[in-house]
């Protein structure tokens, strides 16, 4: 990054109105692609700023300069008109040169952003109204697993996401890592990015997808490669068996009260495919597609009445006694 870009970024991040270094920001690049895009963006911004300021200055000078006095609108000087016409054509040619130059700058940036990396980690992401299904696929089936709304990746290694939709058009966007790509019904799209630094990067659906489009977020958690490896091994395992009586009761209720019709918990009899996979729900940082932090209180409130927190989502309110709710909650908390 050139120095002046850094200066602008520092100014941005210290500007009290807009904390540009939020967790979901084009101006806070943490990946190879987002850095390149910001670079291109600043070149365009610089050219645009110069042109705009020049136009406003010419406008102001044109208004301020001393004018001829007589009101004879058709008293024109042919030589002046022709000279001005030539200047205008010249400026038109200059505009053409500038936009063609910018087109090349843009295409050069595009080539870098969309370049295919070697040895990429491949994920499949399927958009649902209104959550994200994340499939870690491997040639050997026992190394494949499914999770939701939280994508862990290793730093420094290219990640290839294959994007599909189960219903309507969604758009996958993690601005701190790269630009967006749509998930389109009946089409397979692909996006590659590489995280440079470890951290939690928020993403959000960027194509209007219905009632709860606003509540369709997710997190990309970039981990150092060895830590990612350990996480992946843990995630490959089936769900923990409940350790205590209350937990066992919760597991039974999870099936008896209908939760298992939609949710899968690997290694148990719960095998529903409609909702997010809950095999390791206890280890996730957020619930309901990045809407709430994952705490016993929020998870309990969510199960008790999902329609209050996210009206219109597909999870129905199940009639549960308070004791039953506590048992299910206790069970889910253990699914680390």
């Amino acid at each position, binding site marked *: 990054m050139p120095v002046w870009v850094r200066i602008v970024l520092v100014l941005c991040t210290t500007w009290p109105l807009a904390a540009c270094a939020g967790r979901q920001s084009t101006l806070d690049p943490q990946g190879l692609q987002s850095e390149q895009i910001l670079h291109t963006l600043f070149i365009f911004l610089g050219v645009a700023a110069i042109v705009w300021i020049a136009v406003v200055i010419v406008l102001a000078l044109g208004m301020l300069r001393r004018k001829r006095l007589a*009101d004879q609108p058709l008293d024109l000087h042919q030589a002046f008109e022709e000279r001005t016409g030539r200047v205008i054509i010249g400026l038109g040619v200059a505009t053409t040169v500038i936009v063609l130059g910018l087109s090349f700058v*843009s295409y050069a940036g595009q080539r870098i952003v969309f370049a295919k990396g070697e040895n990429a980690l491949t994920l499949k992401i399927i958009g649902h109204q209104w959550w994200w299904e994340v499939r870690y696929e491997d040639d050997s089936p026992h190394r494949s697993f499914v999770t939701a709304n939280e994508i862990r990746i290793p730093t420094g290694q290219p990640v290839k996401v294959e994007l599909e939709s189960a219903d309507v058009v969604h758009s996958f966007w993690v601005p701190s890592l790269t630009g967006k790509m749509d998930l389109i019904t009946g089409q397979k799209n692909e996006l590659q990015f590489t995280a440079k630094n470890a951290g939690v990067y928020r993403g959000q659906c960027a194509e209007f997808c219905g009632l709860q489009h606003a509540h369709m977020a997710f997190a990309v958690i970039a981990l150092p490669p060895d830590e990612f490896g350990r996480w992946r091994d843990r995630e490959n395992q089936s769900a923990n068996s409940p350790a205590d009586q209350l937990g066992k009761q919760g597991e039974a209720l999870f099936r008896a009260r209908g939760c298992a019709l939609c949710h899968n918990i690997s290694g148990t009899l719960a095998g529903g495919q409609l909702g997010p996979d809950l095999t390791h729900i206890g280890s996730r940082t957020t619930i309901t597609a990045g809407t709430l932090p994952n705490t016993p209180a929020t998870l309990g409130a969510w199960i008790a009445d999902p329609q209050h927190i996210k009206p*219109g989502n597909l999870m129905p309110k199940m009639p549960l006694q308070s004791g039953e709710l506590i048992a299910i909650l206790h069970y889910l908390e253990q699914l680390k």
Partner: protein
Amino acid sequence: MSMAAEPNELRDDVLNGLQLSTQLEKVWRTPSGLVGALMSVDHKVVGRRYIVTAFAFLLLGGILAILMRVQLAGPEKTFLSADKYNQIFTMHGSTMMFLFAVPVMEAFAVYLVPLMVGTRNIAFPRLNAFSYWMFLFGGCFLWISFLFNAGPDVGWFSYVPLSSLQFTPTKRADVWAQMITFTEVAALAVAVEIVVTVFKLRAPGMTLDRIPLFVWAMLVTSFLVMFAMPSIMVASTSLILDRLVNTRFYDSSSGGHPLLWQHLFWFFGHPEVYIIFIPGTGMVSAILATFVRRPVIGYPIVILSLIATGFLSFGLWVHHMFVTGLPQLGAGLFTASSMLIAVPSGLQIFCWLATLWDGRPVYRTPLLFVIGFVVIFVLGGLSGVMVASVPIDTQVHDTYFIVAHFHYVLIGGAVFPLVGAVYYWFPKIAGRMLSERLGRWNFWLAFIGFNVAFFPMHILGLIGMPRRVYTYTADMDWAHLNLLSSGGALIFALSFALLLVNVIYSLRKGELAGDNPWNASTLEWATSSPPPPQNFDRIPVVKHRDPLWADSESLPVVAGLSAERREILLTSLAEAEPQIREASPEPSIWPLLAAIATTVFFIGSIFTPWAVLWGTPPMAVTLIGWFWPAGSKEDEE
């Protein structure tokens, strides 16, 4: 100029000024009474209705904008539910694009173009009346549906499969799609009228290179309408077919594809922006020449730029689809084509700057709005160059950066010139001046309010705020800028309230305008304010691009037109040489009845395909009534 007289017909050359005026007024006036008003085919009456209706929809769309800004002023507000918010942003976009921006520009053309080219009425005046009724009924259909909680909620772009029967089982998407049909019929009708009016009804001597720039702009716009609108009509009709009779245009599981919708929609949707913007440039050229007291420099450059913009606008729809997974090289080419449109737009800006540079500006309200236009529109154009770049677009697409960009382009490029045009032409239409004092307040509130409302949205988009979200959480750092933006929106809304007050006040108390209060150069100022039903007692002959500046004493005129029936003069396309005298239609109730029959047909057809069958005979009856020969002299020849 005089033409061979036929016996026994009262011609304008045998009457003196006052007699002729009275006689023509009797022939051309709209019949009195309610039924008479409904029969009117006078382009000024229809144009006025069109303008007022379009501004009423602006008011409604503006109220929706304020509701959205209240909801977004802080995080997790519950002022609007998700369902209401989604209906409201869909209604805001649809109302502003289909019921305000395009119709209001065509409305000004309906009123002004016949006056500016020096004829007595628009071409196909009954079609014009029909167009207005279709627009009115379509707009009311949408808004009544909304008030009954059946307003569309799938965005003004109505992407499939969200708008398909599976994901929108209610009638909401059909209401949207059929409203499109209404407004497109209306828009296409006006486009045809404008093209024919400009090509065939110009005053003798108004050669192609003497046509006022506003008329040129409306001519180019009308061609854009004719080529762009069919695409959206195909798209919305096939959407209705998918929903009503299970065709599979957009169903990927049966060989259709959702991206087909996006291509068809944006093949219309991008020229749509220029359909709104090009009339704005025409208004700027008209206002600028009058208030800097000299013709616009580079008349041929401006016209070639308008035409080039028109052509290029059809070659860049794909930049709305950069993140749909298109081939990279193809997307890159659309980057270049999108940016190239900056060239003709830039040329026009340079011409206006040069005109201002050499001119002697008189700072009245219309000119203030033109200056505001330059400052805002250039910024919006430059952010447009940014979003034309594929890599940049992958970040800012569908964020508030885009919301900021297109409001800068559309409000800056079209609404500022439009409000300037209201101040400029109100004296002609109403016969009274708008208050200059209120006008200055109006301008400064609009300029400041607009920038405070929309500039922060650029930053919001860059710091990650997507469009079309009904709320956001407190930890997203978006609250301050959103609050600022909402405050700006209120100021901006206030400026329009002031415009409304100014119009209502000035209609009664405004200073009388006289024929040509601004000492302007084009033909609409050569008649009284407001103009008489016949527009001109004698059709002027044009010998100069700025006729009222060149012949400031009195214009040469045509003699020999009938004074006892509605007659207009057709002229040749390029040189505007007189060709033939032609009858112009009398007032008729049939356009209204035809519009009612069409409305029943359109609305019925979103409920049952049988409406297509049973709806046709009433339409046929009204059209037969409409075209029934009146037994005029011309018909018998």
